[in-house]
């Protein structure tokens, strides 16, 4: 239960940062926290306390004590995707800084409705 609380807490903190902070780098950190929260949520879905890796060649391991490997595979994939997104976000932030000389989102408003 505590893991789920932590995961959802991280997700909410991340979203709060994305929505309220004015500095672009902080927004990107918020996105990262948001994603990390989701990863923990995913891992929790397959976690068993005191469980072991699901390797069937080992003798005398009770199958009900094996951790579900699928969420871990999902999280690995999602981490790779998250890295790609964050790398792109940071490189765009660098470009943005070159153009505007600031990372304050209130001052970056070339495009309007």
């Amino acid at each position, binding site marked *: 239960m505590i893991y789920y609380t932590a995961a959802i807490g991280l997700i909410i903190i991340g*979203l709060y940062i994305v929505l309220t902070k004015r500095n672009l780098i902080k927004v990107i950190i918020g996105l990262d926290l948001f994603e990390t929260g989701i990863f923990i949520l995913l891992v929790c879905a397959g976690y068993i306390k005191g469980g072991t890796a699901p390797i069937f060649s080992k003798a005398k391991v009770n199958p009900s004590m094996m951790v579900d490997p699928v969420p871990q595979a999902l999280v690995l994939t999602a981490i790779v995707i998250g890295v790609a997104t964050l790398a792109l976000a940071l490189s765009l932030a660098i470009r943005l800084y070159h153009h505007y000389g600031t990372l304050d989102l209130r001052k970056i408003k070339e495009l309007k409705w």
Partner: protein
Amino acid sequence: MVSPILLIAIPLGLTFCIPLFGFISKQIAKFIPVLGMLFNLVVAISLIPQVMEAPFTVSLGGFPVPFGINLVVDPLAVFLAGLIALVGLLISIYATYYIKKGDTQSYHMLYLLLLVGATGIVLTGDIFNLFVFFEILCISSYALVAYNRDKPGIEAGMKYLIQGTVGSGLILIGIALLYGQFGTLNIAHIARYIHSATPLSVFLPMALLITGFGVEAAILPLNAWLPDAHSSAPSSISAILSGIAIKMGVYAVIRIIFTLFGAHSLLHYVLFIGLLTLLVGEFAAFRQKNIKRMLAYSSTGQIGLIIFAFGLASAMGIKGALFQITAHAFAKALLFLAVGYMIYHSGSMEIDSLAGMGKKIPLVSIAFTIGVFSLIGFPPFVGFASKFLIVKATLAQQDLLLTIFLGFVLLATVIEGAYFLKVIQTIYFKNNKEQENQPQHSTSLAVAIPICILMVLIIGIGIYPEMLNKILSSAASMLLDRGGYIRSVLP
């Protein structure tokens, strides 16, 4: 028989071979997307006769279906894969001429990657795999929006990235919740057991998934990124984003509602949101001075119409929606390509600067006119056939409320006509003093070929809409037949 896996594998392989080909010659890179999409188009067409008989599944890596990832090859998937390949092919021919500045090699890589993502989305039968392909599509489009590295491009790319990342995070939470409840990721497998769960525990993942995919689909409250991204990207990218990428969001939303959750009670709400999206998009487009922004808002409106037609949830309505997807993909691709070429010559995106283009580059101006006529829905263009089908499907429901809604849809079409015809008037009948003495430009072949093919398609299908009738009917009935989908995947 060609395996449908190749639809994804060959373009993906070619994408990462582009830097290798770069060692031989820098010029090869721009022809690789053409090659990959030509291959996909041929494979998709060759698969059509087979899927019309019976849809089939392909399990990847030889794992049996609920455990491994599977591709579901049904008429809808093959039709959309063919559409992606066709539009992608034409735009990649255009890009061989259009993209000259910057790191062209990475442009072509990202472009092909975007199309791989789109093809994967329509073929996959696994919800996490859907998410992965969706992210491939999204990340490559964030990068492509910012390709020009100018102020608006970077800013729009950043906005798109932040909203898109939050959206895909929501999708992942939805997937985590579904996996926690059902212990499987296969769409058909979840769909089979979804009604055994309590409605409340299913509602949360459904809301998260629809919101997440809705960001890419630009459904009304989630479409703030769209006008910026579509107007600041290079025109060839605007064309592919508008023609293909947002449709993938719509496809995912529809797949989730119809197949995964079977939530038909939600569709009235979907229909209403579609109508709102349509009206807001068209009204916003009306007051734009920038031609690409106008087209971008018009895309929002058209997406609203597509969602409205899906919300009707009758076989004819879905057929109309699929027809509208085709019509909009062709027309908007044509419009963005034509406008891109005009901007290339006038150097400005303001509508006033397009004055006199009718004389200067006649072929492109005619293409623009045909695209606009098709989008508004004049006969004999393809837009007429699709809008007519949607109107017919709405009236067939014999519901007073729907008839009133239909009035609003037609009002939106009138507004669309008003602002687009204003642009056409500027192109043909206003004289631009500076450019009057300039000679006629002959249009480059790499621009003329895709534009002409798109014009022929728009007029050809418009005159003879029966051409797509059979595959669209069977795609629509497959989408409604949830039990059939489950049985075809899990015997």
